[in-house]
């Protein structure tokens, strides 16, 4: 019986990590539904970006207040989680504060964790106020109603509870240490939790142990729940930010990729020896689909982008179309892509691993043509995104589908394109008049 807690802890850990692993495998599977992209170039620059943009959060800090708060919560959270390592070892081996042998360094670590925990608590309260009390425009867009808004708050409550439990665990431990309780050897320094250890003065040692143990168990359980919550929330970015920034574009923002399928087609048309009326060879692959109407037509990087998006709305708040009241919101483009991908994922799960067409797609069922045609391709969203996400590339791919597969451009643009085709200019002027300005 004496190993019961160890066994329980082991099972809890296996369940928590196991379910998380399963969901991450689903994410990977879903991303692989996209078109593969071979990225092996610019390694140095890419790692540099990861260090600067993902780890260093350089783009977030462009908005100093929210950037600094985020940095505190992020750093605090990461560093405090070193403590989780000790908790796991203690849980498995039945030890208590196994790293205590580090002595002075241990004191330093625990003290740092405590101060960070306090800072995280303060930042989280400020974050909550920003989200719920201050009327900050980017948190009020239509796409933020309902679940996305809740999601943003839930994660803040999580942090409050986890930090609270961490401090409760420490303060009761500290009180027990003062009492000289067995197993609670003097270890660590508790600049924050010692402040309110006084509330335990009147308690018996046994009830204090119950409090300490409960806080300890709830804290680690909370962390495992948090880990598993990520998959269902915008908070996947704490993991995906790194690969996403790595795979982000390293070319000039103005360089839109040239559609390879079209290049092949154009080459054939320009080839004087090709017979345009020849029947296709019987074993010829089906003609490629130009552009994107659903998530499977997007690249794996674009799908990774969708899972990484943290719904911060920095893109949307810089978007000229959105700022002037158009329906387009680059954040919504990313959220829609993820929602549709999750819908496809559930479909695959329900149908023994194969996608059964459901009569829906990303285009129109999620993203309207009105949104797509409002974009000026200005790249403000791409520039603003702290995670190197590219909403514009999805907009462009969907426009390609509309125009090349459906001939569904706005009528004025059809006129423009006819002009380019016939006159070599977007206006109905004759190409032979192109140099007239020099004589005027």
């Amino acid at each position, binding site marked *: 019986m004496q190993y019961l807690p160890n066994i329980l802890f082991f099972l809890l850990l296996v369940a928590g990590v196991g379910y998380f692993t399963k969901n991450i495998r689903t994410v990977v599977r879903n991303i692989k539904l996209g078109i593969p992209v071979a990225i092996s170039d610019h390694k140095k620059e890419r790692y540099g970006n990861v260090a600067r943009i993902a780890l260093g959060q350089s783009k977030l800090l462009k908005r100093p207040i929210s950037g600094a708060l985020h940095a505190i919560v992020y750093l605090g959270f990461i560093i405090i989680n070193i403590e989780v390592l000790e908790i796991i070892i203690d849980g498995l081996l039945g030890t208590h504060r196994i790293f205590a042998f580090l002595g002075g360094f241990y004191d330093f670590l625990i003290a740092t964790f405590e101060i960070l925990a306090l800072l995280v608590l303060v930042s989280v309260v400020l974050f909550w106020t920003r989200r719920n009390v201050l009327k900050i425009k980017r948190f009020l867009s239509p796409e933020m109603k309902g679940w996305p808004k809740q999601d943003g708050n839930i994660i803040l409550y999580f942090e409050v509870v986890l930090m609270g439990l961490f401090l409760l665990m420490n303060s009761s431990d500290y009180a027990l240490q003062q009492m000289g309780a067995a197993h609670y050897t003097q270890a660590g320094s508790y600049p924050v939790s010692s402040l309110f250890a006084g509330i335990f003065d009147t308690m018996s040692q046994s009830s204090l142990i119950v409090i300490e143990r409960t806080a300890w168990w709830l804290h680690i359980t909370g962390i495992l729940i948090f880990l598993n919550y990520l998959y269902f929330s915008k908070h996947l970015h704490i993991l995906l930010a790194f690969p996403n920034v790595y795979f982000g574009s390293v070319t000039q923002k103005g360089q839109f990729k040239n559609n390879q399928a079209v290049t092949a087609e154009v080459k054939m048309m320009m080839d004087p020896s090709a017979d345009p009326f020849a029947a296709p060879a019987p074993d010829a692959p089906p003609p490629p689909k*130009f552009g994107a109407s659903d998530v499977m037509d997007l690249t794996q990087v674009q799908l990774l982008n969708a899972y990484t998006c943290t719904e911060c709305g920095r893109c949307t708040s810089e978007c000229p179309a959105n700022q002037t009241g158009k329906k387009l919101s680059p954040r919504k483009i990313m959220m829609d892509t993820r929602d549709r991908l999750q819908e496809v994922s559930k479909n695959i799960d329900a149908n023994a691993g194969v996608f059964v067409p459901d009569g829906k797609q990303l285009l129109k069922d999620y993203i309207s043509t009105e949104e797509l045609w409002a974009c000026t391709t200005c790249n403000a969203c791409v520039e603003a995104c702290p995670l190197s996400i590219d909403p514009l590339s999805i907009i462009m791919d969907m426009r390609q589908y509309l125009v090349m597969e459906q001939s569904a451009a706005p009528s004025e643009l059809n006129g423009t394109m006819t002009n380019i085709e016939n006159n070599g*200019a977007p206006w109905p002027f004759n190409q032979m008049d192109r*140099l007239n300005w020099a004589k005027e």
Partner: protein
Amino acid sequence: MSDLLKVPTMADFMAQGKQPEVLFWVGCAGSFDDRAKKITKAFVKLLNNAGVEFAVLGTEESCTGDPAKRAGNEFLFQMQAVTNIEVLNAYKVQKIVTACPHCFNTINNEYPQLGGNFEVMHHTQFLKTLLNDGRLKVEGGKFKGKKITFHDPCYLGRANGEYEAPRDLLRKLEVELVEMKRCKTNGLCCGAGGAQMFKEPEPGNKDINVERTEEAVDTGASIVATGCPFCNTMMTDGVKHKEKEDQVQVMDVAEMIANASEL
């Protein structure tokens, strides 16, 4: 004045068995749009004045395909690109300058994978090298001390990271350069990009060019300088919309330099 413009074509150079120093890619707006033609001419005056041996393609030039690509017609874009690249390669063109950031971006970034490898410069970058080489004189003239703001064209700024060349030129004009709140990497689009120039905007509560013009007017500048024929149109329309034509003028950086030297 304009009869003084020397605008040789690539064909002229070819006939003499010579290569120009640089090809001036005029672009559709620069060739056909009445307002943009003035920018073209101002730039040519500067080139003539600096003794730059340049040539244009003239009637052999065609749309780069930028509006087609941004409208989603990749097919038409690539047809235009391949045709243009054939012409440019046939003339063994190496260096291109253009006064249109869209042409600049397309030829610079999207032609290489289709077989067109050229050194491409925006006209403000080119003018700056002329200035550095002592071939071009940029002096304040009538702009000296005037309050000027520069509107960053998306396809020069964010798209290609060039924010300083036009500003350096403006500083040489000894103007008082004031920045709008949203400038450089955060610059707000004029509303023309992505083929929006050629269609009505989607329903909203304001036109983008009006939003941008308000910001420009708020700086108190008497001239909104820019480096793109489309931005120029959008901002000019915005100024008209706000009925500020008496107070605010929209000018290309090249026009200002030509104007200052009374060319």
